[in-house]
């Protein structure tokens, strides 16, 4: 693939140290072992609920499990408490901007999560060109479709949706057309 995404990611992606990756996975592993919902380390609970609401607009749960069921917000919290710790401030500022926009568009509303669905979608259209939305979208995709060891993609919900299966070995034929050729 050509690498457009990296141009942007390179300016915000975290330190690559393998130690960070290990720490994030360890944290997620411990959280998964606990019977109570894991506490948020980087996000305050009110922000977490709002981020969960926005992630659920990116990958909705309308026709099957989406970002909410996959635990995307937990992945984002892991990222912000480990390898993306330097993005906490951009998140704080970004969420404040979202809330300002919401208040401007819907003065009577209290939160993104409490908005009626149609208004939520209007709000996302209003912010979809911002850098912060692109960051949220990127985090949402990695939380929905990334390795579950980081706390997202619970029960492989994301992988099941797109038809990806993470195995260590495959035998050809792999798809319809190479199977045709084998006949």
């Amino acid at each position: 693939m050509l690498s457009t995404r990296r141009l942007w990611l390179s300016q915000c992606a975290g330190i690559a140290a393998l130690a960070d990756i290990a720490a994030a996975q360890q944290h997620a592993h411990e959280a998964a072992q606990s019977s109570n919902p894991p506490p948020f380390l980087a996000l305050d609970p009110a922000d977490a609920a709002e981020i969960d609401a926005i992630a659920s607009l990116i990958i909705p749960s309308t026709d099957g499990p989406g970002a909410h069921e996959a635990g995307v917000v937990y992945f984002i919290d892991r990222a912000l408490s480990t390898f993306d710790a330097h993005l906490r401030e951009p998140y704080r500022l970004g969420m404040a901007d979202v809330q300002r926009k919401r208040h401007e568009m819907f003065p009577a509303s209290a939160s993104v999560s409490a908005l009626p669905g149609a208004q939520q979608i209007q709000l996302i259209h209003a912010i979809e060109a911002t850098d912060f939305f692109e960051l949220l979208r990127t985090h949402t995709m990695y939380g929905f479709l990334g390795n579950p060891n980081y706390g997202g993609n619970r029960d492989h919900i994301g992988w099941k949706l797109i038809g990806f299966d993470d195995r260590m070995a495959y035998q050809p034929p792999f798809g319809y057309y190479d199977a045709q050729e084998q006949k």
Partner: protein
Amino acid sequence: MSVTFRPSDAVDFLVIGAGAAGGVMAKELSTAGFRVVVLEQGPYLNERDYKHDEIGYIYQPGLTNDPKIQPITYRKNESEKARPIKAIQYGRQVGGGSVHFTANYWRFHESDFEERSLFGEVAGTGLADWPIKYADLEPYYTKAEYDLGISGLGGANPFEAPRSKPYPLPPMPVKSSGVLFDRGAKKLGLHPYPAPVAILSQPYQGRAACVNCGFCEYFGCEMRAKSSTLVSVIPQAEKTGRCEIRPNSYVHTIQTDAHGRVTGAVYFDANRREVFQRAKAVVLCTNGAETARLLLLSKSKRFPHGLANSSGLVGKYLMWDNGGSAMGLFEHPLNEYKGIQVTRVIHDYYRADPKRGFYGGAGIDARFDYYPASFALQGMPSDAPKWGAEYKKMLATYFTHTMTLLAHTSSLPQPGNSISLDPDLKDAWGLPALRVTFDYHPDDVATMQWSLTKQIEILDAAGAKKTWTSGIALTDNMPSNHLMGTCRMGNDPQQSVVDRNNRAHDIPNLLIADGSSFVTAARQQPTATIQALAYRAADYAIQAAKRGEL
């Protein structure tokens, strides 16, 4: 078998960089009987460290240079102020880029070595013939293919240069993308052939065959089936008992004596202590960007413009792997996430043809090098929604029904495209950051646009339901992974940095053998040629050292 040399002990060869070229050098020099230290800035990992993990290796630069500690700045031309952008990317570990590369392994064509004579002058460029011909390099391509373990089908590409031996291993199994590409290309009268790759289709030299897990590009191979230097030649070097691979060693200066000869290199160890490793000769293999930076960092009273730079050309003529990508959606599932990335290639459009009205050519491969999250972020059509119910619905089909073509296109050597030292920004060790100055030549842009139309023709002929393309803006080609040309090879010391044997014109006991010595960039992934050049330069260095001429 592992050996440790004292820094004060002058070893025969100090190799800087343990990647595609450095690994070859380590093996060739140590098996010839020389004592070798290899300094590698990155860690020493192995297959047990690697994972199927996009978050670790695509979102984060787990196996590549990290701009947080080694910032890179970029500007289009000299009149701009460079700003921090990860414009280039390289493998940063023992094995270097050969660990995480896609493993495409194409030889140059005969014409690639003499394009200036064949095509003529191109305004604003330093297009030149190489001082060597394909025939000079052919034995070393063959040696690389057999030493490392390359799978392919010799003679299947009617445009390929003559080869003295077939590939040591048969091609990898074809994927659906390869079958569709085959059908489309043949309908158009083109000549698709099985992709040559540095991946084992059968067991080879004690390593097992590939199991088609699909995590090649961006990832380290957990099965040791990708023929990186890490699993092939580096273990052979260590087995001699004469080669020490020293990871986490970040070189900042190559030292010289009063006679203008190199005496070794100073590096920061893992604890940021400075260490001076002495050596009788130094071989620079740190890649097409960092090699130039290190030479520029190594300036002294005797060499005020940097080492090996009497021509003023160190860092100049930077070339990278331009290209453009087209994608197609098909009726039935392809499941392209299974198996290696590339299984079919065409070289029909490879050679430059003046009738096109511009210089350039393309090698086109059929591939799928997306993974679940990267596909969701970058693989969907540009007119598709980026979020919401419709986006989710499309993802559910597109991931398994999409394939990609990628054209590797030419990159003209322009004097203004360069690697230099950033005057302001420093890395985490306090060294000047690497600054990239790069812009396309108008012919580079014309070639990329032309290549996109050729790719769409093939996808349409293959029966795609929908096609779309990536952009060809500079940002679409960033970061560049294929770094070539910053210490070009030539016979004239005024017009080049190294001679035809990769020896620095200015310094008898300094060799530079990596992508930096490329005179032209062909239109492909450069690893096969980087490694063939390294084998050839090693051969020369061994003979010269034995005669006492280094």
